């Protein structure tokens, strides 16, 4: 279980998360929902210690990650795959170099093995011919697919994906959904996805966390959240606007 205990996070005077509590089941697919600008990305980044919360504790299968030294934190991140909202590929490196960063510097594999792994990963996300391209030569959707491949390069037990289908064309969104569905079905990864895509949530979610107004008004199994309740949570937000 991943437990976020009374987590608060503020930027200057703006409180983004206010003593939120969440328990994320292992080897399940958890969806983090909520209106834009209400802290889904911050929730994801705080969950793995990429952002330091102002208060609270985070337990990853019994390990309290906020007590980790910097070295331990870097070691812990070898277990984490993170797909950023804008892909965040290193723009001075080619696609193949992006995918081989972890394999070269952390896994310390040989060049032949790295090349073969890179080819497999690109085949997995359906971008076989893109090895030598630079990120600027790819569309937004392709970048996200490369980012997924990069996150999977280390075969992490925990996978965090921030807005996988937002701002990209339908074709790439469909491919990404299929990819995530495949990962979900494998059932050996704890996958946490922040998204607006309710349809994807309904198809794939085992567990749902809804973030709104700094709090978590709903967290529980996906089977317990009905469409009506979800609409209600979103509607309240638009009324308040």
């Amino acid at each position, binding site marked *: 279980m991943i437990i976020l205990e009374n987590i608060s*996070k503020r*930027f*200057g005077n*703006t*409180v*983004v998360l206010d003593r939120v509590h969440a328990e994320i089941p292992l080897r399940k697919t958890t969806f983090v929902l909520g*209106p*834009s*600008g*209400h*802290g889904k*990305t*911050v929730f994801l*980044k705080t969950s*793995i210690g*990429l*952002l*330091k919360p102002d208060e609270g504790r985070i337990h990853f299968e019994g390990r309290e990650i906020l007590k980790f030294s910097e070295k331990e934190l*870097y*070691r812990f*991140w*070898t277990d*984490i*795959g*993170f797909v*950023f*909202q*804008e892909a*965040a*590929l*290193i*723009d001075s490196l080619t696609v193949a170099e992006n995918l081989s*960063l*972890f394999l070269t*510097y*952390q896994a310390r594999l040989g060049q032949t093995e790295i090349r073969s792994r890179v080819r497999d990963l690109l085949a997995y996300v359906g971008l076989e011919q893109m090895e030598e391209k630079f990120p600027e030569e790819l569309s937004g959707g392709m970048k996200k697919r490369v980012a997924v491949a*990069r*996150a999977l390069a*280390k075969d992490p037990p925990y996978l965090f994906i921030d807005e996988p289908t937002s701002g990209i064309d339908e074709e790439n969104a469909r491919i990404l959904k299929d990819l995530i569905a495949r990962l979900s079905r494998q059932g050996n990864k704890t996958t946490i996805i922040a998204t607006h895509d309710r349809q994807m949530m309904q198809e794939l979610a085992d567990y749902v966390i809804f973030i*709104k*107004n*700094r709090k978590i008004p709903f967290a529980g199994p996906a089977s317990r959240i009905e469409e009506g309740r979800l609409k209600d949570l979103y509607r309240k*937000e638009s009324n*308040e*606007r």
Partner: protein
Amino acid sequence: MDSRIFMRNPDTPDSIDLGPGKSAGFFIVFCELFLQLVEFFKNIPEIAKYWAETSRQINKHIAGTLPLGMFIGCFVGIGSSLQGKNQASIWVAHQIIVNIIFKYGILELYPFILGLVLAGKIGSSVAAEIGSMKITEQIEALKTMSIPPVGYLGWPRVAASMIMIPLTTIFSDICALISMSFVSLRVFKWVSYDDLIAGVKFNFRPCFLIIHMILKPALYGFVICFIGYFFGTKARQGAKGVGQASIQSAVVSAMIIIALNYLIGELSY
């Protein structure tokens, strides 16, 4: 009340505001710089691990910095020769004039001018590069791949600068010496060959060359890239923030170089 939470860029929440007239003062910047310096020294063992990246940065220097250094050396050398010609008179031994412009040029002026030019060129480019990586989450992406940004981005740039700026200074000094000698002997003809050699040899101490042509530029290299990296990692608010980081980096590293130039001079003589 508007229920939406209007956040600043959540990816740069811990950065301090370094903009002019803003609340963060000099003291906070100084503390942040010190902490960054400590982090750099903690990551010294990473230099060997990311040597490939350092080589890539060295190649960038060879293409961009060496020709610039040679250009500066040639023209500053000619300028020095012109100054020597203007000072030359029957009342002052030409050997002394050569000795002064040689020493002042090689030991002080050329490394100093080169340092200032490179503070603008390399420092601002490092700040802009790191700054745009920061605002596009690439630095966080490196962390999630368990690659420390100081090791992968910081040290390779600093190490490349510490190797290449002394090398550029040596090339620049050689160019300056050649151009100064050629112009003095063949164009302005204000000094004889024997006076030139005697002037250069007079009170010549090789240890000064090591300090001012190698150690001092290496220190400049560290300052330029370290300051560029520091301000780059503090960039925020998009392109404007990157521009600001770039300017701050050039100005602060130039100021440090001016102070260091005096301090090293004071200590070495």
